[in-house]
């Protein structure tokens, strides 16, 4: 069975590909699963701490709004303060 982290990474690959116009394989070669998770959790911590808005969060994560919500949901991370 796929872990929630693996599911979140799959969602990220798809979302990032759509956001950048690259293929999922290209995105995968740019950022691996561990790097993705570390980055998204670090950004989420900053967001929850009030460092920036959700819109800015999407820019820093490099995925669109709805897709970021789905990724956070998969990781059981809150999408609001």
């Amino acid at each position, binding site marked *: 069975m796929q872990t929630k982290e693996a599911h979140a990474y799959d969602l990220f690959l798809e*979302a990032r590909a*759509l*956001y950048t116009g690259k293929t999922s394989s290209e995105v995968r070669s740019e950022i691996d699963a561990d790097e993705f998770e570390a980055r998204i959790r670090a950004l989420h911590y900053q967001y929850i701490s*009030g*460092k*920036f*808005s*959700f*819109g*800015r*969060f*999407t*820019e820093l994560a490099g*995925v*669109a*709004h*709805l*897709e970021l*919500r789905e990724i956070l*949901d998969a990781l059981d991370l809150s*999408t*609001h*303060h």
Partner: protein
Amino acid sequence: MTTSYILDTGPLSTLCSFPLNGSPYIYTVLKYASVLLADGVITEAGRGKIWRTVSPLINTGEIKSISSPIEPEILDTSYGNDLGLGERSTIKLGLKLGLITVIDDRDAFVVANRFGIHPIGFQDWVVKLVQESDLSVQTAIEIVKASAKQYPKMYLAHTLQLLSSSELRTK
């Protein structure tokens, strides 16, 4: 004649992602409200899967896309690292047009107030559509409940109470 509202990317994403009878509830809401989007919101929407829903509605004129002004530039210079492009663009358009602006993000909401526009959140907008535009209470409750997870839990009971009050007023 429906009232026009400016939507930020957050509320737009909510409208485009949750189904009401099998289709995103933006199609239902557009019967009761005119939706305007700032160009920055269009840019953000174009980078995600909601574009599949938004793009045809722009092409048919059911959603209007409007360029936001450059001013006030301090929105970009002071808040460029804190707010997203769509949020800044929405605030600028709200200032320019003086229409009700729907913003969910807390920081963007506060900054909008600092510039003198008084946005409303998504759930309050749904209540407003019931009170002023004849959206049915039943549909509003369905929309609010389906999207409740995106908002602080404490809002839901209050929103449902507001909707119940609206129903009593219309009877």
